[in-house]
């Protein structure tokens, strides 16, 4: 359609493109530029070439952040998808009880990460937390869920699974409702058992939902920050240092703008890769 005035489309878009450009695109250029400098926010910045990247790599900080993020994300995505699918299958039925349980599980996804992180710090407190007390009650000795470097990352992953399982469940429920009941009835008449019906009918038809949930929750987990900042501050001994937290620590605790920027550049590349993957999946979903 022709615009009412020749300048019209431009001023209609100007505020949006201005804000997006200034706060989302321009920062990427600044990050690339700043990553080549050594700067502590106080004294003048000094050009250092690629040495920020080199130091981060040689000290293993980049690899550590990447590995922790990958392990955490893998556990969170697998766990929340598995539970989400199981709950969707169990709760895909009419009735008030099922509706209430569905809402309860999904509400965790809507509530703040801060509230969830604090609630679980209290539940998991080694001395007085409910979980540790119950563990002791059955005669076992509770673990130091957040203080043991071999366990802490998995504790954070478990808390995150609690938080986002409702998301996976809701998407799977929407997928289940798109499957015509006739298919199951026909298969039953042909003598297919419930396992055969799941593997031959339900799962193939749910696969688009599964890919959608998988890619989306992978991106959510890659950007995790709140649980780390609140529950462990990256510790013990860096065991829970996820990528975004590592960047935050570089700039706000070590005052190393250059190294933080170098990590931003690497992290952006990773997130772009993942999101490009996600967009391909979404496009597949639209045409399917």
């Amino acid at each position, binding site marked *: 359609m022709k615009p009412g005035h020749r300048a019209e489309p431009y001023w209609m878009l100007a505020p949006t493109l201005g804000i*997006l450009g200034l706060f989302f695109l321009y920062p990427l250029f600044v990050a690339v530029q700043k990553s080549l400098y050594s700067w502590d926010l106080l004294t003048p910045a000094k050009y250092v070439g690629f040495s920020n990247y080199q130091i981060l790599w040689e000290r293993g900080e980049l690899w550590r952040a990447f590995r922790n993020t990958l392990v955490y994300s893998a556990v969170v995505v697998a766990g929340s998808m598995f539970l989400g699918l199981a709950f969707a299958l169990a709760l895909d039925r009419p009735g008030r009880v099922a509706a209430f349980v569905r809402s309860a599980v999904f509400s965790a996804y809507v509530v703040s990460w*801060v509230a969830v992180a604090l609630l679980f710090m209290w539940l998991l407190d080694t001395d007085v937390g409910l979980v540790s007390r119950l563990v002791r009650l059955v005669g076992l000795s509770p673990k130091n869920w957040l203080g043991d470097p071999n366990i802490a990352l998995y504790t954070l992953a478990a808390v995150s699974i609690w938080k986002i399982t409702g998301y996976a469940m809701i998407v799977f429920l929407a997928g289940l409702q798109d499957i015509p009941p006739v298919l199951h009835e026909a298969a039953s008449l042909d003598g297919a058992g419930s396992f055969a019906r799941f593997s031959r009918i339900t799962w193939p038809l749910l696969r688009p939902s599964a890919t959608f949930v998988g890619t989306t929750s992978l991106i959510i987990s890659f950007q995790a920050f709140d649980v780390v900042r609140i529950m462990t501050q990256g510790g013990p001994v860096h065991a829970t240092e996820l990528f975004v937290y590592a960047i935050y620590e570089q700039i706000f605790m070590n005052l190393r703008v250059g190294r933080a920027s170098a990590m931003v550049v690497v*992290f952006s590349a990773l997130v772009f890769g993942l999101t490009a993957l996600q967009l391909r999946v979404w496009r597949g979903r639209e045409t399917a």
Partner: protein
Amino acid sequence: MKLGAGLARLLSSLAALFWVGPYLWMVITSLKTLPELLHSPLSPLPATLTLSAYRDVWLTVPMGRYLLNTAVMALLIALLQITLALPAGFALAKLHFVGKKVAFALVLLCLLIPAQVTFVPVFLLLGQAGLVNTMAGLVVPFGASALGTFLVRQALLSVPDDLIEAARLDGASDVYIVYALLAPILRPTPAALFLLSFVFHWNDYFWPLVMTTDDRVRTIPLAIALLREQGTGVRWHLVMAGNVILSAPILLVFALTQKHLIRAVTAKGF
């Protein structure tokens, strides 16, 4: 497919136990007193229900101020996003102009960039502009939504051009057409955008943490997290009371708008 009745009942009970249980424990803890918390921490119900934890939280930190800050911030962001997304989506969906493809590509590109990637430069930028510790510093970076613009554009593609042409013949300006004619027709889209945006920014911890150091503009998730960091020892009844204050408004919004919220989330993945 239906699971076997027994397995379905088992899974439902587990879901109820593990998802309702923690909420209940949060509320119960918030109704206890410190001695009770220490001496009989397992007793399901406190000897006497007391709201003293809420009173203490309310008296020790300016909770009203934090609630107001958070509500103002989340409302401003949500309203600003809708106000700007409507004309931008309209231009991208309906108008012909030079550079349209580039503009749309820029919006799509910004869909890929989360605040967790841009916060270091944006913090430096807003620091130079003197906007650290201001409401503007909390709101302006999120004033435009790539997702919102995209959603409005997609929704407008299915609105017939004739409708707009007819309104133009009646002498309506395009601004009037966007806000007074098309916005009501598109209502589900701005409503979904409002819900997603309000809930996300009410809950947001990351950006207020980066942008504020000051009571005056502190938001509630930050304040509750600080309640634990500054609390000496095990005053979990206070933290849980704070948690209830933080979560209750969002759970209320959720209860009132569950259908819309779920539709928005399942369709868009946020």
